[in-house]
C-alpha cells in the first residue's frame, strides 16, 4: 500500500519525521507493507514538490540549503496549493500561534475541505477550534489525528481507545516540561525562580521568551484538548483558569515540605472546570515527577487512577507520535477497504 504525504513545516518536528520515514523505510515495507511517499514539503516561503515522491535523503542531506534543490518552488503557500495536491494525508507541523491558530488552522481546514486526512503536531488549531475541525472532518469523512499536540509520544489521547469500556471522570496532569523542570530545580537546590529559569534556558529546555510555558498557557491548550477528547467536553482555551509559577519562591516550597507536600504546576479537568495552577501534591503522589517529564493521572470510574508518564516534548518524540498516527490512519483506511 502506498500513502502520499503532504508535509507542512520543515522545522525540528517535520525534519525528524522525514528522518524516521527515511531510516525506517524497509521496516515499514516489511512490517506493514507500506510505502510512504512524501510528495510535497511546505515552508512559509515555498514548497519542495515532486508528484512521484521526493528523495528524502537528498532533502536531509541538503539540510538548510534545501531551497537550492531543483524541485523547490518559491512563493507558493500550502493553503493555495492543497486543493491541487494528490495527497492522502496532510501532516501539519508549523509552530503554534496561540491567538489565531494560524497558519495551521487554515491548512487543516483546507485539507479537510479537500477530503485529505490530517495529522497535526500543532496544537493551536485544536484548543481554539476543536469543534469546527471535528465537525468538518466528520462531514467530509476524514480522519484527524493529533497525538503529538499534547504529550508527544506518550499516548494520552490514544489511551481513550484502550479505555473504551471504562469512563474517565477527571484528569490531573503535568503537561509542561519547562515549568516542571523549574519547580524541580527550585525544590532540589533551593534556588530562586529566576535562577532556575536561567538554567532551563541554558540547557535549551526554555525559550528565550518563556511566557507560554511558565504562565501556564501551553499547558492550558493541552488540557483543553485532553478534556475535549477524553471527557467529551467542548471547551476552548478561553475556558481555562490559568495561574503561572513565577510567583513561587523557595520559601513557599520550604514551608510545605515538612507536611510532605511539593508544589507542582498542574493542569486539571474536573467538575466541568479547567484549571492550570500551582498546587500542593503529596511527595508520594505519582505526579511528583522531576525534570522535563510529563505525567497524566486519569481518574476512571471502574479502575481507579491510571498514570501515564514520559517525555512530552522533543522533535523525535513528536515525530514518533506522528508515525503512530499515520500507521493508525493507514490501518483504518486499509480496514475500510
Amino acid at each position, binding site marked *: 500500500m502506498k500513502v502520499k504525504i503532504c508535509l507542512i513545516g520543515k522545522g525540528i518536528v517535520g525534519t525528524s519525521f522525514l528522518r524516521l520515514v527515511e531510516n525506517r523505510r524497509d521496516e515499514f515495507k516489511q512490517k506493514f507493507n507500506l510505502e510512504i511517499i512524501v510528495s510535497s514539503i511546505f515552508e512559509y516561503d515555498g514548497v519542495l514538490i515532486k508528484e512521484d515522491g521526493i528523495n528524502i535523503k537528498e532533502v536531509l542531506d541538503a539540510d538548510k540549503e534545501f531551497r537550492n534543490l531543483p524541485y523547490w518552488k518559491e512563493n507558493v503557500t500550502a493553503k493555495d496549493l492543497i486543493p491541487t495536491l494528490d495527497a492522502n494525508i496532510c501532516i501539519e507541523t508549523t509552530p503554534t500561534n496561540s491567538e489565531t491558530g494560524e497558519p495551521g488552522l487554515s491548512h487543516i481546514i483546507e485539507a479537510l475541505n479537500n477530503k485529505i486526512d490530517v495529522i497535526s503536531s500543532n496544537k493551536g488549531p485544536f484548543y481554539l477550534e476543536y469543534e469546527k475541525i471535528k465537525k468538518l472532518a466528520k462531514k467530509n469523512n476524514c480522519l484527524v489525528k493529533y497525538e503529538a499536540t499534547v504529550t508527544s509520544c506518550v499516548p494520552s489521547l490514544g489511551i481513550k481507545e484502550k479505555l473504551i469500556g471504562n469512563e474517565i471522570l477527571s484528569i490531573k496532569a503535568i503537561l509542561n516540561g519547562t515549568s516542571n523542570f523549574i519547580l524541580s530545580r527550585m525544590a532540589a537546590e533551593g534556588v530562586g525562580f529566576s535562577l532556575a529559569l536561567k538554567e532551563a534556558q541554558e540547557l535549551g529546555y526554555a525559550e528565550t521568551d518563556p511566557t507560554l510555558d511558565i504562565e501556564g498557557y501551553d499547558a492550558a491548550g493541552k488540557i483543553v484538548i485532553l478534556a475535549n477528547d477524553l471527557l467529551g467536553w467542548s471547551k476552548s482555551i478561553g475556558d481555562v483558569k490559568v*495561574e503561572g509559577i513565577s*510567583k*513561587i*519562591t523557595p*520559601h*513557599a516550597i*520550604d*514551608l*510545605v515540605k515538612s*507536611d510532605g*507536600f511539593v*508544589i507542582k504546576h498542574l493542569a486539571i479537568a474536573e*467538575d466541568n472546570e479547567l484549571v492550570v*495552577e*500551582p*498546587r*500542593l*501534591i*503529596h511527595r508520594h503522589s505519582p505526579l511528583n515527577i522531576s525534570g522535563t517529564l510529563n505525567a497524566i493521572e486519569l481518574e476512571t470510574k471502574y479502575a481507579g487512577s491510571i498514570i501515564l508518564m514520559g517525555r512530552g516534548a522533543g522533535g523525535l518524540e513528536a515525530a514518533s507520535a506522528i508515525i503512530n498516527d499515520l500507521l493508525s490512519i493507514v490501518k483504518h483506511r486499509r480496514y475500510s477497504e
Partner: protein
Amino acid sequence: MINLEVKLPDSPGSLGELIKPISKNGGNIYGILHFHDKKIKGLIPVNISFELSENIREVSLENIRKELKENNIQIENITYGNEKKEITVLLTGHVFDTDVLDTIKRLASKEINISELQAKFTELKEVSNVKLKIEFPENMTKKELIDELRKLCKEKQLLLITS
C-alpha cells in the same frame, strides 16, 4: 470525632493512664486540653478528642470505658460529632499587610478555622509565604471551602495554592 471529658489527679503518670486505653483500642488522638485553672480537690478537668474507625467504633468505645474505669478514671461526659475536615493551603503575597487577622476572622465567621499558621518572609514589606492548616465543617465540601478562600484571596490579591 469523640470528645471525652474526664478528671485526672494532678500527679505524674495520670495522663498516660488516660491515653493508653484509647491508643490500645485504635483511637487516633486529635488533641488534649488540660484545665489546670479549674483544679478542684486535686483533680484537673481534661478533654480528650479522638477518632475511631467506623467498623470498630462501638466495641472499642466500650473497651475504653471499661479500661478507664479500671484505672479509676471517671468519664464526666461524652460528646460526638463536630467532625472537622482539614486541609493545608499556602498563601503568597502581602498576607500580613492585607490584615491577616481580618482574613482569619472572616473565615471563622463561616466556621472555617485556622488551626496552624506558619510564615516565611525576608522583610515585612516584602511578599510573604504563609502556610495555613484549615479545619472546615463536615457539611462543607472541599470545593466550597476553596471557593471561599479564593474570594478572599482575590480581594486581597494573594496567590492561593491548595492541595
